[in-house]
């Protein structure tokens, strides 16, 4: 289960800022999602990966550079019809 950040149509630095916020609020890992009582849990929400959708190469480069500097693994998919890149950010060593 991946958390999605839609940064399409946004130009830098906004996609990077959104990625940064996602990395700060979501714990990357494979722990099962706290399903019941998630609202009252103090633990940060976890997600296997964060997928950032961007639609220009500059944003794709910036988001992946930022994620790598933050110590994550990055894979990039070029997907969809309208020049969309999906930057998939995972915990280091786990793809």
């Amino acid at each position, binding site marked *: 289960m991946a958390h999605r950040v*839609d940064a399409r149509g946004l130009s830098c*630095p*906004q996609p*990077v*800022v959104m990625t*940064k916020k996602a990395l700060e609020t979501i714990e990357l890992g494979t722990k099962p999602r706290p399903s019941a009582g998630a609202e009252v849990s103090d633990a940060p929400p976890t997600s296997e990966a964060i997928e950032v959708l961007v639609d220009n*190469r500059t944003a794709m480069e910036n988001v992946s*550079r930022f994620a790598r500097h933050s110590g994550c693994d990055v894979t990039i998919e070029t997907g969809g019809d309208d020049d969309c890149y999906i930057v998939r950010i995972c915990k280091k060593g786990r793809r």
Partner: protein
Amino acid sequence: MDQRRVVLIAGAVVGALSVVLAVAGNPANMGICVACFIRDIAGGLGLHRAEAVQYLRPEVPGFVIGSMLAALVAGEFRARGGSSPVIRFVLGFFVMIGALVFLGCPLRMVLRLAGGDLNAACGILGFTAGIWVGALLLRRGFTLGRSARMGVGNALALPTLSLFLLVLVIVAPTFVFASSTGPGSARAPILWALVAGLVVGALAQRSRLCLAGGIRDLILIRDPHLFSGFAAIFVVALVLNVISGRFKLGFVGQPVAHTDWLWNFLSMAAVGLGAALLGGCPLRQCILAGEGDADAAMTFLGMLIGGAFAHNWGIASSPAGPTANGKVATVVAIVVMAIIGYMGVEASVKPNQQRTAGEA
């Protein structure tokens, strides 16, 4: 090639070409100044009648067309727009006001420092302060909204205008103005200026070089990538200035500069804040416009009109110092940008939440 190397090479070439253009005839410490050159173009078109600063500088159309060619080759040319065009026009207008009270865009600020002009250090402090405020707003969610794909005509408008400007400067019809004295009369040969503009445009497109972005990324995400280009411009221009005997350290008597530290600081703070909200410095706006970004083209038009008003209304500074009108305009610029910043943060809260919720 590795992006880090590309940005360093681009910075080094921009620094070198800036000194070369100054040696070839452009004003001192002004081998390249995006704001001053757009102002000169406004004068060349007769949008203002300040006789000393009128000339259709070929460098600026060169940036736009060079960027367009590089983007076409790389498959990055995309017609897009619709992200608050009018607000971008206003921001471009006031960025220009700030730059002309300081006497230089962020690029010339670095070139001035590389020429030994210490007044530019006040400018850099102000520029950094402005970007810092802009970065705070960005962190709180400031946005001008999403852009969308558009018809290709939107992408071609500014490159076409650029081509037209080149035709005008070459043909030189009588209705076009060209200074016979002052900075507007100091010019490198057309071909040199054009080639340098094309090279800078192409390299800046490939490297995403941005003076405001360099400082912004350092503040926002501690990433020195773009700042390394900034540093490369400074180091190369500094070395070449020293070698060619053009380096003169001090505050007083610097070419096309004034010594009022407070207004050097405040005017560049306005430029920094505006550039942070726009997502790039004046050079970067030219490059984005060349890549097909119609919003950046609107920013360019805002800068062009801002340059005209700066001289029509006695806002632009002279080496004697800032004018009373210039001081008022700088304060107005900062207030207007602060309001735009506040509104952009407010506007960001609802639509983005709705969108992510709707698509999750």
